[in-house]
């Protein structure tokens, strides 16, 4: 097996880690802090990892933990809790999805229940399988899927509500 240097780990993962951090923190400064803190922890403890294939999961897990530790210290701005999605599945048509810019999507993610945000971010960043997402969030796969179902529903509902040219597509029953 090939040896892995710290620099190569940074090179390979700093961009996806930063994007995950930004999805959670939604400011550049906080996302940079999270990313740098994660690699700092890696530099001090990453050598304990024997399987290089676990590096990705280890990094994302660490970043998520650092984020949660920081969040516990802060008072969150109160946000209006969204109602749970109704039985119908919100659906965004491709045309409307194409019209969105990344800031609108991230803004909508920020309005999703914060318990679901990390799962939704990992889902779209697509760096990880469901098993890996479960490891990162330290919950069972079933919990990941239920958080995703709710989180994606909320996200799409917000995007539909905020898009000026939206049309609502709903799952049709025959």
């Amino acid at each position: 097996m090939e040896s892995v240097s710290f620099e190569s780990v940074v090179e390979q993962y700093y961009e996806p880690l930063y994007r995950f951090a930004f999805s959670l923190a939604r400011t550049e400064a906080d996302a940079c802090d999270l990313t740098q803190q994660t690699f700092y922890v890696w530099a001090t403890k990453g050598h304990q990892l024997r399987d290089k294939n676990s590096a990705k999961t280890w990094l994302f897990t660490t970043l998520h933990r650092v984020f949660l530790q920081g969040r516990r210290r802060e008072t969150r701005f109160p946000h209006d809790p969204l109602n749970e999605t109704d039985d119908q599945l919100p659906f965004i048509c491709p045309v409307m999805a194409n019209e969105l810019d990344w800031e609108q999507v991230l803004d909508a993610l920020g309005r999703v229940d914060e318990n679901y945000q990390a799962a939704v971010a990992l889902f779209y960043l697509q760096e990880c399988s469901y098993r890996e997402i479960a490891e990162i969030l330290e919950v069972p796969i079933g919990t990941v899927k239920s958080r995703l179902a709710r989180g994606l529903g909320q996200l799409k509902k917000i995007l539909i509500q905020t898009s000026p040219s939206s049309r609502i597509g709903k799952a049709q029953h025959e």
Partner: protein
Amino acid sequence: MNKEDFRKILALYRPGTADRADPGFKEALERANPSPAPSGRQDKFDRELGRWFQEHCSSHLSIRSKFLQIPVPPGLKDQILAEVRTPARNVIPFRPMDLLRAAAILVLCLGLAALFWRTHGGKDDFNTYRGRMARTAMQPYVMDLQSHDLPSINAFLAGRKAPTDYVLPAGVLKAQPLGCAALKWQGQPVSMICFRSGQPLPAGGQTDLWLFIVDQSSVRNGPSARPPIVARVSKLMTAAWTQGGKTYVLAAAGDEEFLRKYF
């Protein structure tokens, strides 16, 4: 399962990923994708579900592309590498030839390091130091001593062999001391003194002003005496200067106008 059940399953499907091989999606994918029916088996493809699925995949890829458009700050990688001065760590064992190569590289690096230390006197870069101190203020920390009394703070720091022969700017003297911590930077003592300005604090915060003092010789390429160098480091505004053989970094949870009142 009915069509709605399959939609709920496929709503979690990500095209172009390992989800394709996930058994949890298998039946739903068979319903949503036309495929030649094996002999003796009825094709399960549902045309309406298939149309919905195609649009779901398109929308998913479009939204995913927005996440990938999140701009990564230029220089972030260099900043990460600069923050961590520890040598590269190997996470799995070397092969014998790798050991020889590593030994040769180590000898070369030791030679270069000796040249470097001789030239630069073993000091570390100021920008890295400033960033580390700012991060210390922003991360969870516990003060070694909580006190409003500066003489008590100085006595504590002296006991920890941290710098106490500092000169406080007139503005900082008006702030209320809260306590201190004795830190280390590259093995050298750093005094961190926490203050409260009297302005409204961020939610959950106790401190909005930090002063870091270190011996000037511990930090390479440090600031000049005056005027202070003002720079934003992440969420904090900082001002840095050198005076009386000490390098000072004053950090504030506010904007530059707020910070300038204190130096």
